[in-house]
């Protein structure tokens, strides 16, 4: 764990000087953002009470010990990503924070309903866009915005997708604003990653705070792998009774390789690379030691562009030639469907509330972050005039690249970016700078606030399932709002609490067990 911030270091020095005193609350200074653990007056929010109590009884040394044990166990399990340098490559663990982030049942039920609604609407939108395009005829979304998006795949036009489930795995990014409400910042419908961290973090935090975990009544996330398998199987259930499911990975050099292997292992299905696949007569096979064997469902963790050199990028060797034709012929299912990216395009994002209203006749349960489209002249001039207040993002970029954070940028950076926007306004959107909520993290032995977001995972096949848990990503640098792991982000476990009734049910047998002689 590193923190280059001088303020953080001063505080650390004070804590160290105090010896092995408990990690005290006095060092904790939440800023103006909503804090997950403490209400504005400094009182602990009720759902954090158990955890606070536990933390107070542990010394700073004890906490650091547990942090070390945790990091050691991640390294040993190989939960790492690879950092490529000039000479050699090294493997690092994604920094993982000891304290779980806790979400009470009432808040979660809103999130769950909101995400289900959103994914239902987005799947209907995709079926429509790759079908009759009613939404474009009715003028709800500008035609060129959808059909001109780089992620639109005309090859998908009029192609049958079972259950109209295009985005089988979705990982939406939610943030909590200063008002305490959750907003959707981004929908990830292509190949969202991070679910292995959700599961690995849970594994770790159960061991770090076993008593608190049991008492709190945390809803389990361990069923994710079998729910994922059921979702994938449901995609071909109409014509194959026991389909062969596989995971397709770009290979061991991909930064998310650990996750691909992890999911394949927990689902008990083969982990394939493109070179293991053979397509013959529009059938897809894998090369086994005993000849070829038919493949029915491919959970691919390879981007659209790379899955088939005949249909998409010609220079790709990560997929298999002819795969897409086999898909067209209905002999194999690719999950997520190619072309889902058009629904998480940053410009289309601005229209999601309209999309929900159009297909479902409902208002969006989870609001969007206010978004300005630079393609609209009136919005463009507003953005250019207030560049110091907004975050401007390139539509096609992701991972925290190609963006301007107005309030933190210099005048020259803003001027340069303004030129870029004017040159290609369609490629940019702007959003107000949002103070993400903060959660307590263990930084050099002391508890400090760090900004966090929330990435829950939603599965859709014959039905939509939201896993009661999430990956909480943490901006480890004090004050930073960027949580991407490629930009120095970390993660922590997320406890979704069961309803009170469930908590009581969980508590009862434990108490009686303790009372037995």
């Amino acid at each position: 764990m590193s923190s280059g911030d001088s303020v953080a270091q001063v505080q650390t020095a004070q804590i160290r000087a105090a010896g092995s005193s408990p990690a005290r609350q006095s060092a904790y200074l939440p800023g103006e953002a909503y804090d997950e653990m403490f209400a504005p007056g400094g009182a602990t929010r009720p759902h954090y009470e158990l955890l606070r109590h536990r933390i107070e009884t542990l010394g700073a040394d004890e906490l650091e010990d547990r942090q070390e044990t945790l990091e050691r166990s991640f390294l040993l399990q190989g939960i790492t990503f690879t950092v490529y340098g000039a000479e050699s490559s090294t493997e690092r663990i994604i920094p993982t924070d000891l304290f779980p982030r806790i979400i009470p049942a009432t808040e979660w039920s809103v999130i769950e309903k909101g995400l289900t609604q959103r994914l239902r609407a987005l799947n209907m939108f995709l079926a429509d866009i790759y079908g009759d395009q009613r939404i474009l005829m009715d003028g709800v979304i500008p035609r060129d915005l959808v059909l001109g998006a780089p992620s639109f795949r005309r090859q998908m036009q009029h192609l049958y997708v079972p259950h109209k489930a295009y985005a089988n795995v979705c990982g939406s990014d939610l943030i909590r604003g200063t008002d305490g409400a959750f907003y959707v910042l981004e929908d990830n419908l292509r190949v969202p990653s991070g679910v292995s961290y959700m599961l690995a973090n849970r594994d770790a935090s159960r061991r770090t705070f076993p008593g608190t975990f049991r008492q709190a009544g945390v809803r389990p996330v361990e069923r994710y792998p079998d729910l994922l398998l059921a979702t994938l199987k449901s995609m071909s259930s109409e014509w194959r009774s026991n389909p062969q499911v596989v995971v397709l990975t770009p290979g061991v050099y991909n930064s998310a390789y650990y996750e691909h292997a992890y999911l394949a292992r927990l689902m008990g299905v083969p982990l394939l690379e493109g070179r293991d696949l053979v397509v013959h007569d529009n059938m897809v096979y894998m090369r086994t030691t005993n000849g070829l064997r038919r493949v029915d469902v491919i959970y691919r963790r390879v981007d659209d562009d790379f899955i088939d050199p005949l249909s998409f990028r010609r220079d790709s060797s990560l997929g298999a030639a002819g795969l897409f034709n086999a898909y067209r012929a209905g002999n194999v299912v690719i999950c997520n469907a190619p072309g889902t990216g058009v629904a998480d395009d940053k410009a289309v994002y601005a229209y999601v509330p309209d999309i929900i209203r159009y297909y479902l006749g409902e208002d969006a349960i989870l609001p969007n972050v206010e978004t300005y489209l630079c393609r609209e002249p009136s919005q463009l001039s507003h953005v250019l005039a207030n560049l110091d207040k907004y975050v401007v993002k390139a539509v096609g970029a992701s991972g925290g690249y190609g963006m301007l954070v107005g309030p933190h940028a210099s005048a020259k950076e803003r001027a340069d970016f303004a030129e870029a926007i004017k040159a290609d306004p369609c490629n940019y959107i702007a959003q107000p700078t949002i103070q993400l909520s903060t959660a307590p993290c263990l930084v050099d032995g002391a508890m400090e606030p760090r900004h966090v977001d929330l990435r829950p995972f939603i599965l859709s096949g014959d039905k939509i399932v939201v896993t009661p848990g999430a990956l909480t990503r943490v901006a480890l640098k004090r004050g930073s709002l960027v949580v991407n792991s490629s930009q120095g982000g970390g993660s922590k476990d997320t406890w979704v609490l069961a309803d009170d009734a469930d908590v009581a049910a969980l508590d009862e047998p434990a108490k009686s067990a303790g009372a037995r002689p």
Partner: protein
Amino acid sequence: MMLARVADSLYWIGRYVERAEHLSRLAVVMLNANLDRTDAAAQAARIALAAVGDPDPTRSAQVLQAAHALALDKEDSGSVMISLARARENARQVRDQITTETWERLNLLYLRVTDPGVEEAFADDAAGFLQEIIADLHLFKGAADATMSHGEGWRFMLTGIYIERAQLMARLLEVCFSDAARPAANDHIALMSLLRMACALEPYLRVYTADINPRFILEFLLFDEDFPRSIRFSTERIEEHLAHLSRRLEGERADALRLAGRLNARLKYADADEVEAAGAGSLLAAVADECAAIHEAMYETFVAYPLELSLPA
């Protein structure tokens, strides 16, 4: 049924861990011999370096450097460190096929030899460092045996282990018993070093008592039925595993099994007196060649087979 690429990786994990263990043991014997005030060190170093194909006589004079090169040389593809790194890289590619217990043993070994403090640890106590690696490799094999299903994947890994072992033992014996090397084989110190390098000293003593006789040693390391590092033991296992792996293959595709059976029969029904009379050199060379042929045949049969054979008509 398993992926061809996965089978290949598992096979290579077996080969690389066996190689790492053998090289570590050669280096340990060299280092321990170095403690005696005799020419034992030079003898041991000469045997070990010749067995890994480095006959440069000047190197055997500097035992510590030679051991260091065997253990930690980043350039030499035949060092313990590189072998472990490759075993682990293969394991990473088939991470979904091996159990967590097995993976963690191997990952731990890899983290140890690539640790920034590894040079210091080696300089501090080289023999101890290597002995720990050997012990950890035993833990790896134990974990694989105790936690992995003894199915196809496990058999590919073990075939890799035994093919590598048979080849390495053949090369080690060639150094001491090939027709050109015969005079050296009468040296007591050299013979003790050989037994230690084959991890065979205690089992040998149980069978032949402390009678250190070159003929007995050759017989023991070539033909013993029960000693896990004898060539005969290895070829028996290779045949056994390939018989399982080839069960569903048609006749002409079971070439690897045919070769393995032939090699095993050659050792099983060999006559010790005849070998003694004719010189062990030709038999040992044949073992190395046949192992290479089995390796090729396995690749052709299970991994890189022509697709026309298996496409539906």
